[in-house]
């Protein structure tokens, strides 16, 4: 909390706004005043105070390394997050993300990995694009042999430009519920092979 607040003071923008943000923490980790942190911070995607942030967490019966490996291959992300159509990996740090977008008009942006701690954490942020956004995923051993805790944070700025009002956010619905549902399906897939389907809503 303090780290991210003081960063805000320093530079006028915080990387990921709200206090306690894992992403902010990861970036602010060493020294709030250091030139390096401040410089990285000034490249932030989401201006402080203007973003929307969600945080969701699930415990999954699966080793952290396996979960990390799955997320680190960013091309897998559309299989987890329903708002994404595809992610093309450009190089080790850069990738091109395409979301489904409003009225099925795809929206693309470039993203870069800004933190990569094998088995523990991956963080990314957009570079340019109409919806500045950032996110992170953290993997931690759950207590008492309960598997791995998966903590996901995402933040995005209100969209500007042409798409304007028709584009409330990246997700096309209640982002908290969408991300939660996506992660729940991910958990079910890792644990049981496939997410539950009731059949009631499937038209035959």
């Amino acid at each position, binding site marked *: 909390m303090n780290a991210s607040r003081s960063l805000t003071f320093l530079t006028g923008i915080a990387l990921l706004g709200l206090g306690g943000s894992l992403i902010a923490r990861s970036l602010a980790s060493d020294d709030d005043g250091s030139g390096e942190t401040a410089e990285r911070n000034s490249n932030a995607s989401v201006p402080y105070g203007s973003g929307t942030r969600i945080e969701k967490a699930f*415990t999954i*019966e699966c080793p952290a390394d396996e979960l990390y490996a799955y997320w680190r291959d960013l091309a897998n992300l559309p299989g987890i997050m329903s708002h994404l159509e595809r992610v093309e990996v450009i190089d080790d740090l850069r990738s091109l993300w395409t979301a489904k977008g409003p009225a099925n008009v795809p929206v693309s942006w470039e993203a870069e990995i800004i933190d990569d701690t094998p088995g523990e954490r991956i963080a990314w942020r957009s570079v340019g694009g109409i919806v500045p956004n950032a996110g992170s995923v953290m993997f931690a051993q759950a207590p008492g042999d*309960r*598997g791995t805790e998966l903590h996901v944070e995402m933040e995005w700025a209100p969209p500007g430009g042409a798409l304007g009002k028709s584009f409330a956010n990246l997700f096309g619905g209640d982002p908290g*519920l969408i991300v*939660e*549902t996506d992660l*729940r399906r991910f*958990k*079910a897939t890792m*644990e*049981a*092979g*496939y*997410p*539950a*389907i*009731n*059949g*009631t*809503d*499937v038209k*035959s």
Partner: protein
Amino acid sequence: MRAVTYHGTGKISVDNHPDPQILTPYDAIVRVTSTAICGSDLHMYSGYIPTVQKGDVFGHEFMGEIVETGSEVKKVAAGDRVLVPFTIACGNCNHCRNGMTSLCDNSNPNAWMADMLLGYTCSGLYGYSHAFGGYPGGQAEYVRIAYADANAFKVPDDLPDEQALFLTDIFPTGWQAAEQADIAPGDTVAVWGCGPVGWFTIQSAFLLGAERVIAIDRIPYRLERARALGADTINFEEDDVVETLKTTTAGRGPDRAIDCVGMEAHSFAPDNVADKVKQTLKLQFDRAHVIRQAIYAVGKGGVVSVPGVYAGFIDKFPMGIVVNKGLTIRSGQTHVHKHVPKLLEMIQDGRIDPSKVISHVLPLESAPEAYKMFVDKVDNCEKVVLKPFAAQAA
């Protein structure tokens, strides 16, 4: 296919539905040979369970033959005769791994609804509202079952449907109700409700070493059936339940109290409970009457076990009694999977004959009459088994 379909409070009919299909590689389709109506179905039928919708297919106690499996199903195959627990397990989440299958993390596709109602979702249930998954139920010719490897239990060839069917719910439910009451030798166990769940609970209590079981109901034929199992009985319309329990246990009160009635307790004239505590607790008789009475009537340091289903919030919960008498309350939808192997063995050993709970075997098409009979407790109705393919069999 034909299936029992809900059309609003007190209204069901047998309608045509599309045949279920394999939707995930872990699914199987079961052709239902026997399916039963449960007291839990009556709560939906009577309109007390949230998120039940018109057009829903009821039924969570069913068995039959597997006719199709998804590509990832390894342990069962077409042609296998199986029974299917009403609580759906994924088999691999932390709760499933620890035997708590009714608390499965993964089997409820509408988890967000259950999260809203309960804080955290529990397992999906067949034919039991959208908050519990919206799975079409088993009072039908065919059912799609999810995570088939974790949920389809093969039934020994020589065990007839009538012996195996109740392993899907009410036998494990009665067993868990008694087991979680921590019955010790010498214990007196009071059981509210002599419906099918009470019937299995009474026997389970004896099997677990109860010295004495006192069963409470008002339906004469059900009290008679409880006595046939060796229980003493109290007709709550004739006798004061609390006073009778107190005197008959020489002032100790029953050591264990089990609520096999749930949210639709029959209401009746105010009795001692109300007389004694109404002033201080402002106790009212609504449909949570039984749980309140059980808490009041149970002896000090006792356990109150609640297999009876409650859906939401109840008023005037006597927490002061729980605290001061040092009570333990235990409840839950049944972790059916955990109990099936052991209880199956008990059936095969002849230690219990579940088929004796059946009062009626009818074709599926008779479901509307069967529900009416079961809800009105007429024609000595205890447990109805429906046969979807009765016509072909005859």
